[in-house]
């Protein structure tokens, strides 16, 4: 009878596995050890039925690897070692990094002073996100201080976009990050247009974040580039600027660029929120007029 050695090999394997289970923390073993042994027995039977006792070897290999990894993780939990556990509720994003702080400061009691300081530093253009801007949207000659002022929300939106890519652990700034950055910038014409159109910017943000998810690993020290679509959005924004005979690139041009690009995540999310090209085009002159030239 062949079934006697087969049975014996399964019994022995499960017996050994029961002993090996002692590498798990006691509470985990007490809660799930018996069930884990049942599962292992099931796998053993399957393996032996398919390939006889030698089938147990690869099964043991896989099981021991699994055991080493998960036992280490369980001990980490048991000893309270903080680790990134995906299933734990992620706290609602309070936007980290320098710019959250900057926003608070800008409106705080020292806001005016802080603005002046920032203007003096004028480090915006040297930051990587800005260096990747195509030439089509850099400012031409003859620009006034008013023009320059109106580019500032755009610069901030772009820096926010880079922050967003970083925060989501993505290696590139895509249209989705451009949109998230634009939504965080509340002073530009785009913010005004979205407000007038009655767009729930938080809902748009949730929609985008829901689609893009968050990467596993933090992206540290890597150059964050632009995706092809994001570059296209910036080009179209420059196009919008020229079409309107504006000498500055405002957030409204960025918004129009996203809508014209039409295929990226940004355009999709905006369309779902009921933001369409024509409506934005119609609102821009009034909104930018109110902002003062």
């Amino acid at each position, binding site marked *: 009878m062949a079934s006697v050695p087969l049975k014996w090999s399964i019994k022995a394997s499960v017996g050994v596995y029961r002993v090996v289970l002692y590498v798990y923390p006691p509470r985990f073993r007490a809660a*799930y050890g018996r069930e884990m042994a049942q599962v292992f027995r099931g796998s053993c039977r399957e393996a032996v039925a398919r390939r006889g006792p030698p089938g147990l070897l690869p099964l043991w290999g896989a099981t021991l690897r699994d055991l080493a990894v998960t036992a280490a993780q369980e001990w980490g939990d048991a000893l309270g070692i903080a680790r990134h556990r995906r299933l734990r509720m992620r706290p609602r994003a309070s936007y980290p990094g320098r710019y959250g702080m900057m926003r608070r400061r800008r409106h705080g009691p020292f806001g005016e002073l802080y603005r002046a300081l920032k203007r003096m530093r004028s480090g915006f253009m040297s930051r990587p996100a800005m260096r990747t801007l195509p030439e089509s949207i850099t400012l031409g000659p003859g620009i006034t201080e008013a023009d320059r002022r109106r580019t500032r929300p755009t610069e901030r939106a772009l820096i926010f976009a880079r922050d967003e890519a970083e925060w989501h652990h993505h290696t590139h700034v895509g249209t989705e990050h451009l949109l998230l950055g634009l939504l965080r910038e509340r002073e530009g014409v785009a913010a005004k247009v979205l407000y007038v159109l009655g767009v729930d910017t938080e809902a748009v943000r949730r929609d985008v974040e829901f689609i893009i998810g968050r990467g596993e690993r933090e992206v540290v020290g890597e150059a964050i580039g632009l995706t092809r679509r994001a570059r296209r959005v910036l080009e179209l924004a420059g196009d919008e600027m020229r079409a309107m005979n504006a000498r500055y690139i405002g957030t409204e041009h960025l918004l129009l660029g996203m809508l014209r690009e039409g295929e990226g995540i940004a355009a999709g999310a905006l369309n779902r929120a009921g933001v369409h090209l024509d409506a934005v085009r119609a609102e821009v002159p009034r909104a930018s007029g109110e902002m003062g030239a």
Partner: protein
Amino acid sequence: MMDENAREAEALLPLTPAVFQILLALAGGERHGYGIMREIAENTEGKMRLGPGTLYRSIKQMLAAGLIEESDERPDPALDDERRRYYRLSGFGQRVAEAEARRLAQLVNTARARRLLPEVGTAPVRGGA
């Protein structure tokens, strides 16, 4: 507008492959641990085999997060007369699984729009012409 439940469900995304597969396996009805493992192996054509450690570590976390519930303990007549603990999807788990499926569908749509996948209903293009 999104209600509180939906937001809570989405706070868990993206799910790990193991967690999502377990949710998928339990979406077909309650199962015991070995049943979940078999179901996953079948659903993935044997490409994904969870070891007992990964399986129960995920189950532990999913119980804690309220995605699944313990059902009763009873033998599986198809296997042997051993008593086995059964698990089933909770209402919240169902919503989380749906939310993750929607998220993945969105990604697939995007991939399709960027020509990484053939359009629905057309054969994959091979060679020229």
